[in-house]
């Protein structure tokens, strides 16, 4: 899109994108789930900030409202929901034995960032602008979220991984063409909220039936 951005706007955009990535890395780095949740809430704020910067660059009230909605949903509602799952998730409040140890996951996150850079080349080439240049960062957040989901064993960690992916996808959506239609956007937000709700309930049930939320206990079903 041919929106002119001032130097300051570009810098703010870059900082928001950097914060998005940094929070994703911190989620991989830390084991204490309550810390992870705080970092995740920060990421929601960074995402809302990103959209707010775009809104001010395009002077779009609609986008400003979307930013506000994102702030409420991803900075407050979803973190609170996951926090409640954590409160009901039993005594284990740490990601004790991830399938990939933390040092290795950090190096894997580095590799994933490079991968994100490589796969986003055509996207950036299609429309080189300050906003699309930040797309690889958002794609990296998606991949890191995917990795957290695959390698973590605590139910709450997996939920955070899923939401991390989703934050990344939302960031890609706004950085590319400033969203994909208000109706679809609202539908996606609702879906994410509902999935988080479903996972919240299921976390409670896992705790009820297995006595723990360590997902390595899920071994009933196999061939």
């Amino acid at each position: 899109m041919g929106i002119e951005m001032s130097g300051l706007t570009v810098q703010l955009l870059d900082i928001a994108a950097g914060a998005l990535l940094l929070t994703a890395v911190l989620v991989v780095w830390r084991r204490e789930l309550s810390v992870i949740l705080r970092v995740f809430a920060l990421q929601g704020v960074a995402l809302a900030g990103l959209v707010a910067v775009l809104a001010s660059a395009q002077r779009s009230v609609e986008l400003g409202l979307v930013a506000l909605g994102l702030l409420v949903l991803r900075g407050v509602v979803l973190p609170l929901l996951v926090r409640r799952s954590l409160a009901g998730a039993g005594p284990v409040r740490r990601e004790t034995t991830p399938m990939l140890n933390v040092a290795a996951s950090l190096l894997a996150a580095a590799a994933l960032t490079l991968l994100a850079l490589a796969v986003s080349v055509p996207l950036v080439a299609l429309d080189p602008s300050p906003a699309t240049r930040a797309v690889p960062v958002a794609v990296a957040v998606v991949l890191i979220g995917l990795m957290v989901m695959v390698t973590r064993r605590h139910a709450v960690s997996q939920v955070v991984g899923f939401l991390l992916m989703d934050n990344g996808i939302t960031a890609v959506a706004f950085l590319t063409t400033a969203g994909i239609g208000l109706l679809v956007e609202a539908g996606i937000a609702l879906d994410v909220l509902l999935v988080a709700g479903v996972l919240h309930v299921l976390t409670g049930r896992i705790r009820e039936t297995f006595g723990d939320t360590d997902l390595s206990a899920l071994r009933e079903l196999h061939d």
Partner: protein
Amino acid sequence: MSTLLLLIPLAVPVMAAAMYAAAGWRRPSAPVAVVSAVLCLAAAVLLARLVVDDGPVMVAGLLRVDALSAFMLIVIASVATIVALATPAHLATELAAGRIDRRDARRHAVLVQAFLAAMTLAVLAADLGVVWVAVEATTIVTAFLVGQRRTRAAVEAAWKYVVICSTGIALALLGLVVLNQASAHSGTGAGLDWAALAAGASALDPDVTRLAVLLIVLGFGAKAGLAPLHAWLPDAHSQAPAPVSALMSGVLLSVSFYAILRVKVIADGALGPTFVRVLLLAAALATLLVSASLLIAQRDYKRMLAYSSIEHSGLLALGAAIGGPLASAAVLLHVLGHGLVKSVLFVGAGRILQLTGTSRIDEVGGLAVRRPVLAGCVGLGVLALVGLPPFSLFASEFGIARAGFEASLGWPTALALVLVVVIAAALVGHTGRMLLGAAPEQPLVPCPPARSTTVAMVGGLAACATVGVVAGPLTTLIDAAAAILTGAS
């Protein structure tokens, strides 16, 4: 008139869900689901006639029906009818056995109707974004249906189901976002409207579109049971209540596959047929291989049916990869045939589970002696599933294979056929052990009679056989839909 017809399949399940939410699951309210399904089926048939005669119908820029959507609507409504007929007996037995209570039964009825509404929305939506929202909504509404029994296994299956499907579908969303970017820069103003995208496909940036299509096929492939993200399917299908398994296997997989088909049309226009063909061919063969290797030594009959569903998803992918009018028509016929037969089989499997109390193949034994009608239906269903005539799966598998050899994809097709034969042998062998032989000592659990279930099973098999022998007016619809898939119209 057409607007009304288009809204019926969407509004009727929603109203039925509201009714169940208000009134609960009782003897008088039970037939509402059947009425709802039959109404949808009637509306779908009328819509199909309308579309074949007059071309696509559009409502408010949000919903659109062409021949392909109309065909999918018919599949959804037919399977919904079978399931609606079988549900009362299933729930009555579960209630009598105390495995669920009234609240669970009400929730089941409400969620199933919501599930149907979401699938209908997915095939009616004109915007791929809305298709995504609807497919994701199916995950949400079925999560609690899968975990209904609250045993360890059921909770585990529900967790895996939600996590894997949501992850996969999130990748599809990323793909749609990327596709949207390509669309925004193509200058056609198509947004994510599939018809406009297909029309203006040649203007899409090929590199960006390739990335988008890869993500979308991977993502919706997860929900359609294609490898590598198929792991949720056997768990969810084996733990869900029988009517829900029937719906998930019979239509949910093909609704997700419908999304892949829509994107394939766009991708073929933008990238040429090779890219998606290679992608789908790889997925198809991997899927068939997974299914064959896990079916040979399968010990659980519900999981057996689930792996068979994975197999058929692989066949659909194979047919879509081959492309062309013959293969496309065969794929659509296969969707219908598999939907009918698999729902009959899952309903039957649910009945067997209730009667014997076990889901292990070697603990059933001698069902033909004890319950000849049920055993007959299940036996015929498995024969239909492995592609014996006169059932329509014979015609569709034959069509896919022939098209494969004609399209000079001989080696992959031959490999797929070998795997299909292995799977067929495994299925028939396992089913034979269940149905034939001497009955075990342990008596069957007394269950309420299930006349409507029998009607549903016989009806489903009869419909499948009829379609296999005389497709009749369905041929016109399938040809029109296949023309859309090949980009000819």
